[in-house]
């Protein structure tokens, strides 16, 4: 088919050149060169014709009907059906906006599925799924028994993960979490402090910084840890890891009554996870000790 291409052609036209040609935005010289190429190159001319058919402003009756059907199907799928009498233009727009937002959220969710490249947080979670580094509870940490993970052979390579985190442009918080999970507190603290300084830092950030202080346990760290756990609870008073860690901090500090109060508070928030079972065991031991 491309019989004229060698004699008239040159390189094939890019998509931008083809749309520029149709739009009439090319300079006369480029336009003329495009025309010479389009006359000779069947492939580019087919691309041009296809784009012309696609973008044409006239909408046929069949096309219009099919578009209406597809839009209705879209609304049925994505948008919650408004109550009778509410289907005004404004409400349709609002619901459609929610629809798009849902797609954005879905896209973010899909991007975290295993068949996609794992995110920095996925790498931290992978590490935490195989290793419980200390008594305290990091944000979103899956439960593992402490004793069961003391075999260093099951740990993923920390150095390899840290490099992967850098490749995935992990932010200060994620990098701090990885160092914290590996008990590298001196590296974790400055990163988590940086993350916590952002305005409106989430409970998760304050909690993890508190854990880093608690575990580092240098001069004044317990007080810093308590402040961070309280900041986490100020942002969300049902944030379970912060309640857990506050109780642990009181326990370590010998403030038994406060600790017991916080452990019970924790059980009100969480009753059926491994963390809750661990708390129940602590309280039972305390009762026996009395």
């Amino acid at each position, binding site marked *: 088919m491309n019989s004229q291409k060698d004699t008239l052609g040159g390189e094939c036209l890019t998509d931008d050149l083809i749309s520029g040609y149709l739009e009439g*935005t090319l300079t006369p010289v480029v336009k003329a060169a495009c025309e010479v190429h389009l006359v000779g190159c069947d492939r580019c001319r*087919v691309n041009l014709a296809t784009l012309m058919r*696609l973008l044409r402003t006239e909408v046929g009756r069949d096309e219009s009907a*099919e578009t209406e059907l597809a839009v209705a199907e*879209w609304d049925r799928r994505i948008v919650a059906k408004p109550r009778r009498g509410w289907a005004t233009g404004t409400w349709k727009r609002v619901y459609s906006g929610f629809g798009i937002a849902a797609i954005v959220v879905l896209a973010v969710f*899909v991007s975290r599925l295993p068949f996609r490249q794992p995110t920095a947080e996925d790498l931290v979670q992978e590490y935490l799924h195989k290793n419980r580094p200390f008594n305290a509870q990091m944000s979103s940490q899956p439960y593992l028994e402490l004793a069961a993970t003391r075999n260093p052979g099951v740990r993923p390579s920390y150095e390899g993960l840290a490099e992967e985190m850098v490749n995935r442009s992990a932010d200060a918080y994620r990098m701090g979490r990885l160092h914290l999970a590996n008990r590298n507190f001196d590296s974790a603290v400055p990163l988590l402090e940086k993350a916590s300084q952002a305005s409106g830092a989430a409970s998760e950030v304050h909690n993890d910084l508190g854990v880093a202080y608690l575990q580092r346990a240098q001069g004044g760290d317990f007080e810093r840890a308590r402040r961070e756990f309280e900041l986490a609870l100020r942002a969300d008073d049902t944030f379970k890891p912060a309640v857990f860690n506050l109780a642990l901090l009181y326990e370590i500090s010998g403030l038994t009554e406060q600790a017991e109060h916080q452990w019970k508070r924790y059980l009100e928030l969480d009753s059926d996870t491994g963390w809750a079972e661990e708390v129940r065991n602590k309280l039972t031991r305390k009762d026996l000790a009395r």
Partner: protein
Amino acid sequence: MTDTGRFPSRVADGEMSSADLLRECGRRLTDANLWRIFHERFHRQITLYVIRTILMLRGKTEPALVCDLVQDVYYRLLKNNGSILSGFRGETDFSALAFLGRTTMGIVSDYFRSQQADKRRPAEIVSFEHARREEASRDTPADLDVTSILEWIDVQRLIDSEPDRRHATRNVLIFKLHYVEGLTVREISQYPGFHLTEGAIEVILKNLRNELRRRMGR
């Protein structure tokens, strides 16, 4: 702005231009208000482009399939943190629509290509006799239509013979778009790049038809 009445602007005074809207949506992926505007302005258009591409490639649409493919278009736009949106370089409404049209075409083509690949059975054995019959059936006289004749014509001579020297190449391109690619005069006249009315295109086609007839001795 080169948008003409044929491709009227979709933007009211004071609103963000379509090109800026695409770029902003790419930069602020979670801004629901921005995406609401995107949806209002482009959702129906994307749906129409999906339908048109399906009709061009397969000839039959179903609302469920159209919706799936429209969703794939959104995924493509959002992919890699919206990089293709934020990297969009156009400035006009037309370039924004052309960009969405090309993206849509890519998605629908990929879909049908992957479907074809799934259908293709590995190591399918065809007899020589069957292959010969298939080959013979392709050479039916119906296939030897005007398209084949036009492919055979020496395009350079056609251009040389065009009385309108200044626009000779453009006119032959229009001739080929009409007779080889099957675009109607109305469809061609819609595009500002040709800068021609339907009547002017009719005249170009008539002149070139006459020239061909003259050369073929009729």
